């Protein structure tokens, strides 16, 4: 079995299994920890609070202008690499094929972005990730609260991005080896995902909803 076959065969299977298993484990156990019944006299009904909660899910994506002066740079970098990553993962032709094969769907509607643009996005995204990393190291509060989780996640992302770019541009060795390294880093990401901060991809929805909901009940700012 070649490295490539291993990476997209047994290892991918294992990684997907771990991913699904542990993500559900973490989410289910979080949401089953019990809910406190609140007894205060609320300003709004549960229904309209829920609507406000749903709005908060979207609203929090855009920072309040009051904070922008201090956070604009961090926001821009964060936004930048998130958009970059999603564009590459969801709209890059080889990835689209990967997802289609993974889920066994034909999905002819699924669009792709021309590779040339994806290449540019990739390089920009790596650059932004680099800035984010430097910022994490240089910015005092960020550095103070960073832990292994943050750094290791960045390492995986870099591995993934750089191996991907190398595979595409035919750098650093034979394509199938680099491709295998790329897929292996993806597998590592899948396995690491449920145990790491990457879970924010899932928690972001309930967390934003809750703050929107509870603040709406008090009439507090969201």
């Amino acid at each position, binding site marked *: 079995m070649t490295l490539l076959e291993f990476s997209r065969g047994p290892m991918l299977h294992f990684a997907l299994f771990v991913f699904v*298993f542990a993500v559900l484990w973490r989410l289910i*156990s979080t949401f089953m*920890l019990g809910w406190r019944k609140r007894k205060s006299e609320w300003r709004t009904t549960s229904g309209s609070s829920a609507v406000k909660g749903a709005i908060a899910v979207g609203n929090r994506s855009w920072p309040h202008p009051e904070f922008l002066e201090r956070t604009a740079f961090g926001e821009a970098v964060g936004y930048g690499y998130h958009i970059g990553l999603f564009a590459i993962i969801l709209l890059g032709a080889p990835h689209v094929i990967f997802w289609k094969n993974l889920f066994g769907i034909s999905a002819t509607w699924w669009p792709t*972005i*021309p590779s040339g643009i994806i290449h540019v996005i990739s390089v920009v995204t790596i650059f932004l990730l680099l800035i984010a990393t430097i910022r994490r190291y240089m910015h005092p509060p960020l550095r103070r609260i960073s832990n292994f989780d943050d750094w290791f996640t960045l390492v995986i992302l870099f591995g993934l991005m750089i191996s991907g770019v190398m595979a595409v541009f035919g750098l650093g060795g034979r394509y199938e080896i680099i*491709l295998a390294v790329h897929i292996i880093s993806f597998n590592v990401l899948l396995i690491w995902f449920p145990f790491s901060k990457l879970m924010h991809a899932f928690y972001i929805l309930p967390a934003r909803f809750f703050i929107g909901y509870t603040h709406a009940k008090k009439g507090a700012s969201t």
Partner: protein
Amino acid sequence: MSIDNRKERPTIGQIMDENGVGRRRFLKYCAGITALMAMPPGMTAAFAQQLRAARRPTIIYMPFQECTGCLESLTRSFAPSLESLMFETISLDYNHTLQAAAGDAAEEARHEAMEEAWGEYILICDGSIPTKMDGIYGTSAGHSFTDQLHEAAEGAAAIVAVGVCASFGGVGAAYPNPTGAVGVSEIIKDKPIINVPGCPPIPEVMTGTLVSFLASGVPDLDNNLRPKAFFGNTIHDRCYRRRFYDRGLFAESFDDEGARNGWCLYKLGCRGPTTYNACATIKWNGGTSWPVEAGHGCLGCSEPEFWDQGGFYEPVTSKLFNDTGQIAAGAAAGVAVGAAAAVAANRRKKKLSGTADKETSS
């Protein structure tokens, strides 16, 4: 056998002169060869000089588990011209399939040829070698292929494994590999081996490899023992459809608009990105065309495990998840373990917060 019975052989230059081949004709031939090998054009004259000085080689061609496709390809490589003369020059002193002699006479001829060039001949192997049950799946003249290979390899200057079978086992070694077929390099470890894989290999690549060996010995090889001159780039790197890949334009089926427009065949399973060969530049049938130009993706025939890389029509990145049961099991287990973890955590919470709760309830 020993080197005592060796015979002196003429140089290629002498043979060319005898046949009235002009020097510039020869130089032009070499320009073609060096171009094939992606050598810088400035090297042509030096290459020609080296080749002229080389002695006419003895070539022993040993077929094992093969289909004769590679030999067919090789014999079709040359238009009736100087190239055919080159082919005659390096012509085969022994080849089962081509020679008129058969049986004991053929075996005798082989031994004679080997003896005359002991330690200097080039051994070309074709086909995989079965190893299971002491190699009884393939025998010839009462000897197993493994034994024959060992014997022939002993006196060889170098071995050229022609075709994916001789190189990596090929179709014979495909799952479940009932005969235990392997490539030459799995058996012979003490001789220089050059793999020229393909199903079949490009004829020009075969002759190019031989000629370059004559001129300058074992060429630069990759980690699969293939000459880098021919196997240094992927099909994808050199493909004329590459720009469609770069622009994200793909044929989705063999009869759609994309296919008619000549877009990239990646999604239709083209193995170009992981296949190292020279089809995209040298092409086939004397430079007429090649599979991708004909509208079909590369099958990856010059790669190890050619037959076991998944369906030909599944993209390179595919052959992924097919066991939804496993995922469902993972999901179910995740839910169950998550719920159990929550129950345990809640129990732990009750235990831990006992004092605190008493405090507030008091």
